[in-house]
């Protein structure tokens, strides 16, 4: 089975409101997590990342929270804008022996910003 997944496939919020996108992972060996944004017809775009030795990291209008106890990751977007409409994926990078590590993606949440 997959080790990364999302609770909700679609999330609709009003423009200007805050949104929270959730992600659950099952592999306790995962130590690095990333959120990507994918707009229609484009490739995944890096938003923010967090290592397992942290529980919170902030960027511009975005915050990622990591709860290792319950293996839960969330992405908070403040004051959502129409341009935030996209599919958001969480991804994890498992511990490995080195080399170029592939990412394991979750299924994605479609964020819809209502005017």
């Amino acid at each position: 089975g997959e080790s990364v997944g999302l609770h909700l496939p679609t999330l609709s919020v009003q423009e200007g409101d805050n949104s929270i996108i959730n992600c659950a992972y099952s592999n306790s060996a995962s130590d690095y997590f990333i959120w990507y944004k994918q707009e229609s017809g484009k490739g995944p775009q890096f938003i923010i990342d967090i290592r397992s030795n942290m529980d919170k990291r902030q960027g511009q209008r975005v915050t990622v929270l990591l709860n290792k106890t319950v293996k839960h990751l969330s992405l908070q977007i403040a004051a959502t804008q129409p341009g935030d409409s996209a599919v958001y994926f969480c991804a994890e990078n498992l511990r490995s022996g080195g080399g170029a590590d592939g990412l394991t993606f979750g299924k994605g949440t479609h964020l819809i910003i209502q005017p």
Partner: protein
Amino acid sequence: EPEVTQTPSHQVTQMGQEVILRCVPISNHLYFYWYRQILGQKVEFLVSFYNNEISEKSEIFDDQFSVERPDGSNFTLKIRSTKLEDSAMYFCASSAQGSRGDTQYFGPGTRLTVL
């Protein structure tokens, strides 16, 4: 801003034919990746490449697939005998380092349609 580019944007082929998908990673990056995304599904890791050899590959990356860095700028994915189920978006990515915590930057993708 440097970006990963991919050609073609859309490739249509007949089942059993060979296809080559091309990528130009970001110029100072050393680690390269291929992912695929079947329509409506999550992004799946295929293979990573470093120092002219495969670093890591997934179960999807079977003998029908191969990767190559034919020159100093291109990174290619070849599918020897395409199947209907190979229809997907194929994303190339690159990173400066292969270790966890180094951002993978994705290209816009090639949509492969196998008829």
